[in-house]
């Protein structure tokens, strides 16, 4: 595309099928301890 650069074409919807396994890190155990930040956590799959 000439006008648009898609830097993430991920479809969140598609993560529902295999998602929710619950294996990923609890966000507050990473660094924050005071401010919930889930979007920067890693998926375990």
């Amino acid at each position, binding site marked *: 595309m000439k006008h648009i650069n898609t830097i993430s074409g*991920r479809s969140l*919807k598609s993560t529902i099928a295999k998602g929710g396994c619950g294996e990923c890190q609890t966000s507050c*155990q990473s660094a924050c301890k005071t401010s919930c930040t889930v979007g920067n956590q890693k998926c375990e799959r």
Partner: protein
Amino acid sequence: MNMHMFQMNGKNIVLDVNSGAVHVVDEIVWDIIKLYEDKSLELIIDDLKNKYDESDIVEAYKEIQTLVDNELLFTKEEELDINYNPQNIVKALCLHVAHDCNLKCEYCFASQGDFKGQRLLMPLEVGKRALEFLVENSGNRKNLEVDFFGGEPLMNFDVVKKLVEYGRELEKKYNKRFRFTITTNGILLNDDNMKFINENMDNVVLSLDGRKEVNDRMRKTLNGNGSFDIIVPKFLKLVKLRGDKTYYVRGTFTSYNLDFSKDVLKLHEMGFDSISVEPVVASPENDYAILEEHLETILNEYEKLSSKYIELKKAGKGFEFFHFMIDLNQGPCLIKRVVGCGAGVEYMAVTPEGDLYPCHQFVGDEEFKMGDIFTGVTNEKLREKFKRANVLTKSECKECWARFYCSGGCHANAYNFNKDITKPYKIGCEMEKKRIECAISIVANGC
């Protein structure tokens, strides 16, 4: 809100909220998108023909249409029916191994370490039982997390060591994997415990606020002196010995250092490359609390930091700032993004006596006691309340573009400010939104 458009660090960025797609667009697409839902192509051409050639408008419009057809732009919200954790699995514990501290930080949410109760160390037997409770309640989850927290956990380090050893036994017996982490103020660090920490902890969080004067104003020793000169050499040594293993130097900023980007950069300059500096959690009556009137300064500060962050990364001198980290392609699934941090459901805090609370921030507030590790969760009503508090049920989150990134924010912040875990803490929301924008703009700049 299904779309979020913002301009930062030289980029026009369009976030399609429901798909999670992110696009960097030129000026013509930026202008067309603003009109796209309300006007036909003919009317858009009419509106923009004085600014752009008609052929360019048509070309850009077609590109937008392609994305819409592929559900990457103007994507409608899916009906989500999430039955969160019906088996009541618990997979992470914050273990308060010491309700005591050897610093008296002014802003401490734990009331200088004792959480408004007695100064206590967790007995080994309580710690062991906590690990057993975790294994028993973990269902089919393989990865279990235990954070050694306080107060100051190094004040009870023998118990920490024995609990790690016990955890390794349980891992083998039950086919689990414990990820141990520790959060420390560094005062008691020495060669022995550094070695143990580096060998056994998946992550270590080192508390340090940044510039010496900023750190020492809040993080004081028991006799009132600053802690900076004691802890910095120890932290540097630990990090050097740690190699590639994960750690964070974690600071807190308050109304006293609204220019906190200087603290982040100072930490980097000192030799740390994995940094988190976060806003203080404090009621408005405290002098150091973050208030609405500070917000504009703070948001500008985040943006300023993001520009510097890009500059340093591009110069090969980059570092990681926790709140600017975002993985747009491999991040958490939608379900995780909806349910949030898991406090009070899959994540709980354990006091030295063995009492269970939804998370470390609620410890000491009797109203939030969930049960204990000997009999399990007895306050089912409370667990249900936490289970239901998510971005689909919180009215303010439903319409917010950032809902799948902050996941409803921190329950404790919501409760501290609004006495209701379902009513998000507004100042926190504004800061989080800015941090997400900064993080995306950093990716958009190829960093």
